[in-house]
């Protein structure tokens, strides 16, 4: 039994690999279709191997459920998953993300008027961004209660520093020549800010915003491990792990993966609209 399992899994792997090698080495390799097809085949190969090995080796679903069981559970529990999604992502992560980003912009623009502050904020902010801020979750849960407000607070603090550092760095990214040009136009501080320096800072700002999307989801989910109402992705993950309902845990992870990619993708899309002039966005 073990032998068949391993042989069939290897056969699937070999087949997937063979197709991909042919596709990657073929003359069509640079086309858009193939570039999407190859990773899709790779992902599918992994899923089939996973399914085969779990079924043939009779791995207990308490250790690793097969993908089909996860998909089935996902289909059954859609209303539950949606409620968790709304609680954790829409209320917790999004509110915190918006508050943190607005606070970071405000501080960045205020600090930007003083070179002294800027030189202090950049290293301190960069340092803070590397710290395990997610550990403040129990403190915020104590202060603000277990509903989404405390999650939004954790998320706000987590996304604040990367966005702050990138915005401050971006606002400094104009050349003396460009600033002189604005001066010859008779532009004051605000006109220079809105017409030159903010647009020039956009690639940096979006870099910060994109880094912060993942942090926002992590903060909102992990903070729920410390206390939450009986709804939410982090709550569901920690309780389902306790009940050994791992298929539901995986379903939540699928939701978080989709939410994370969609959030990041949305930011990248807005970026491509706003900074269409930047070399990295030109086609």
């Amino acid at each position, binding site marked *: 039994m073990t032998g068949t399992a391993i042989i069939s899994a290897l056969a699937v792997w070999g087949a997937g*690999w063979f197709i*991909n*090698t042919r*596709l*990657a*080495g073929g003359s069509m*390799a640079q086309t858009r279709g*193939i*570039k999407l097809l*190859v*990773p899709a085949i*790779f*992902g599918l190969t992994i899923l089939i191997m996973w399914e085969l090995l779990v079924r043939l080796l009779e791995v*207990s679903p*308490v*250790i690793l459920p097969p993908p089909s069981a996860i998909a089935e559970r996902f289909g059954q529990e859609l209303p539950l998953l949606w409620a968790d999604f709304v609680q954790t992502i829409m209320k917790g992560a999004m509110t915190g993300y918006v508050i943190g980003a607005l606070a970071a912009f405000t501080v960045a623009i205020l600090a930007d008027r003083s070179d*002294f*502050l800027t*030189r*202090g*904020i950049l*290293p*301190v902010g960069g*340092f803070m961004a*590397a*710290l*395990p801020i*997610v*550990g*403040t979750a*129990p*403190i915020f*849960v*104590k*202060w603000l209660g277990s509903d989404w407000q405390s999650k939004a607070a954790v998320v706000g603090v987590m996304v604040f520093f990367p966005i702050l550092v990138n915005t401050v760095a971006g606002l400094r990214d104009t050349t003396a020549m460009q600033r002189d040009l604005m001066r010859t136009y008779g532009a004051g501080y605000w006109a220079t800010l809105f017409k030159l320096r903010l647009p020039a800072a956009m690639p940096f700002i979006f870099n910060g915003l994109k880094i912060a999307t*993942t942090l926002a*989801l*992590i903060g909102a*989910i*992990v903070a729920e*491990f*410390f206390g939450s109402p009986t709804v939410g*992705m*982090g709550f569901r*993950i*920690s309780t389902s*792990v306790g009940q*050994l309902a*791992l298929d539901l*845990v*995986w379903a*939540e*992870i699928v939701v*978080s*993966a989709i939410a*994370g*990619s969609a*959030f*990041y*993708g949305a930011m990248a899309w807005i970026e491509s609209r706003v900074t269409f002039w930047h070399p990295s966005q030109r086609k």
Partner: protein
Amino acid sequence: MKSVLPILSVIAAILLFWVLSVIPMNMHLTADQAQRDGLVVSPETPAERQTYSGLGLVLKNPGLISLTYTLERPRLPSPHQVGVEMWDTIFAKKITSRRSLVYHGWVTLSATLLGFAIGTSLGILLAVGIVYNRAMDMSVMPWAIASQTIPILALAPMIIVMLGSIGIQGLFPKAVISAYLSFFPVVVGMVKGLRSPDEMQLDLLRTYHASPTQGFWKLRLPASVPYLFASLKIGISASLVGAIVAELPTGARAGFGARMLVGDQYGQPIVTWAALFAAAITAAALVGLFSAIERLTLRRMGMQAA
């Protein structure tokens, strides 16, 4: 060096904000305590006091301000309370004691370092594979990039339980999560680094009749070092966060995460804050260590940081 003064000012401003926040945050608790100790507090009942904000209560009872800094179980501990707790648990306790932060720190750090070593080695190997094999590049790279947008940390509780149910406990499950978190930044950075030599340099090696192996060891690998260090610095702090979070939902008995939980559950906020700061200092020390190694290495190689 000219940044020292600005940095110190920003830190001083943050500390000042913290010290001032302590007063309104702790005022309700302080007023309750003061009343029990027989001091005059206005308004007189706790229920009435609840209708006031922290700041409003401060204005009513300016005499109690100094007491907000000495609560045993404050909502927001003041910096000096956290400092004293850290001094006690880091320097004044034997490092084998279960109350020593050095002991807990080592538990977390050992998992972090083991996981980081595994994650980085696998990441570098995969990056080499991706650079030399087109099929692997096209199959794996999109997933490696996409995985950075996914909150991988959400997997932590499940990995612990999964490994626990097949009999693996203790250090290793935490290390797996640390490894997982440091793996992808290293893959992405290393691929970029190994690809950083330009056509001109590759052509030069071709004119020398260098073999692909020589090309790897003499050009691609050295060229990738600045990128590697940039990834290592991201990876090590991600590894530490991973190890801490791995301790949280599983009821671990030792480690920074366990310490934070103990403080949280037994109503000792000072313990939580001390563990938090100790974790932050550890993270800063690890990143600082890698920056120092980076500077030394790059200087000896005659390069600039990427």
